[in-house]
């Protein structure tokens, strides 16, 4: 059994999409996580609901919303298309957008919980030692929430690898363009006499999942050990 170039294309596209998904989500998730953990403001409940909505909505509904807003005739999508010539429809950027929206609540939630677990007293102590609030954030808060950021990133990566409903609704199932692993598996299930190809992708999915879990466990243990805790 050997892997065909088409299958390699699927795997590479999936990894690329998942990495981009985490990359573009991380900074906004850090901001939202910080906002929800540390600040009291008008509309906090509304923001919490909006951020978590993709977890509770059927993915198809999220995909439909994306089509309406980010599609070429959508409110934001139309503007992007006119101003910058950026189109998200039927290409990998659209897959990144769909997976990012679906993964964002998981990433921001992990980061928010990490912020909430930080001992604020350490930050106060750092301020009394004459470091500015920004420096305190960079040298105390950020290193202390690093395991949480890592956990969020892993969760987001896994979510992006497995995302199906929102992707297929928003950008359809175009081989070489938007066909990630789950979409390819779905296509093969509908194709007669493609069992062996189907099984190869299923096994690859399982292996990728194991690799992601192992990597995140290793990173988490390493950062906990650095903080002096037991792992």
């Amino acid at each position, binding site marked *: 059994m050997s892997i065909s170039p088409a299958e390699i294309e699927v795997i590479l596209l999936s990894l690329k999409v998942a990495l981009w998904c985490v990359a573009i989500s991380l900074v906004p998730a850090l901001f939202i996580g910080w906002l929800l953990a540390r600040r009291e403001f008008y509309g906090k409940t509304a923001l919490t609901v909006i951020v978590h909505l993709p977890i509770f909505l059927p993915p198809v509904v999220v995909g439909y919303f994306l089509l309406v807003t980010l599609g070429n005739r959508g409110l934001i999508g139309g503007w992007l298309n006119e101003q910058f010539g950026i189109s998200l429809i039927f290409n990998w950027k659209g897959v990144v957008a769909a997976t990012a929206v679906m993964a964002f609540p998981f990433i921001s939630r992990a980061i928010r919980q990490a912020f909430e677990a930080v001992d604020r007293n350490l930050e*106060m*102590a*750092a*301020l*009394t*030692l*004459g*470091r500015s609030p920004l420096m305190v954030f960079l040298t105390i808060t950020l290193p202390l929430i690093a395991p949480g950021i890592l956990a969020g990133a892993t969760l987001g990566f896994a979510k992006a690898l497995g995302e199906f409903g929102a992707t297929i609704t928003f950008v359809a199932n175009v081989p070489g363009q938007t066909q990630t692993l789950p979409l390819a598996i779905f296509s093969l299930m509908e194709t007669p006499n493609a069992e062996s190809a189907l099984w190869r992708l299923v096994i690859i999915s399982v292996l990728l999942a194991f690799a992601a879990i192992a990597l995140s466990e290793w990173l988490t243990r390493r950062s906990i050990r650095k903080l*002096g*805790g037991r792992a």
Partner: protein
Amino acid sequence: MLDIRLKKSIAGFHLAVEFKAEAGLTAIFGPSGAGKTMIAKMLAGLVRPDDGHILIDGRALFDPRKNLNVPVHQRHIGFVFQEHRLFPHYSVRGNLAYGKRQAARTASPIKFETVIDILGIGSLLDRQPVSLSGGERQRVAIGRALLSNPKILIMDEPLSSLDQARKAEILPLIETLKSEFSLTTLYISHSIEEITRLADTILLIDKGAQKGVGPTADILSRLDLIPYSGGSDAGSLVEATVVGHDRSYHMLELETPGGGRLYLTGPAREPGSQIRVRIRARDVALSTTEPKSLSILNRFKGHVVDHCTGTEGMEELLLDVGFPLTARVTRRSFEQMKLKSDARIWALVKSVTISPS
């Protein structure tokens, strides 16, 4: 020099203090919940007062009339917290160096090597905070605050999380630091013992209200303040001079300000050196005649200056025996001995505590 006036109300608790303190160590003493830590946090800028002002060596840190509230990191106030608050992701060296930038900007009189040496933490530099014992952590925390080269140092019950043995180990270090760096220090404690040993000035507070402020010996000899200066543990402070040591009796001889001698067992000390002696009021007995054939060595001749009724059938007295000395006797004895102001007495001191060298 501290010039401080603070007002703050939080959830039914009202705090109001106003005091000035010279350089040296100012102690804030009061029971838990009196508002001691609140004062410290307001000075450091961690809590905003409702009203008042904070002036340190002429520099205003808080003044609502001028719309001034200097942020925490620009106040140059070192803070040693009740818990060590070491950064878990930095080594001991990294923790100690954390405030160094501030120190580098101003020519710091506080040298790294000196601090490490006095605190005895040289061998811990490459360890992580998690691997240190409680006493070691607090010593590193003290070093970290000092090395940020603060204008004043606040120590908020730095010994309260430690056991008796650790306390006994760190208290002398604080005394050494005090004499070595002559840094204006605010020391918060609910142990009158620690405060009697360390403080130049005492501020007594209770339930958010200031009860008295002034030089340590003066405050401790005020009968009206006894409920706030230690209650049944209250006592007076006398600075005595070492005059000799009798090796065969293992006994130290001290001269008190009035010329009276104080004998206590212990190792020899440098003759001429000053020792702080704390004498609890309940350890002082009185006699109207010169006591003969008594095992108590320390006897001082003097007279009663003032007295007032204390709690639980006791009478509190202020004596002049060459130095002010407080005594506590039962009201029954007080009346039977016909004691009153100006009465001639002999004060018998049953036990004293001194600071170890």
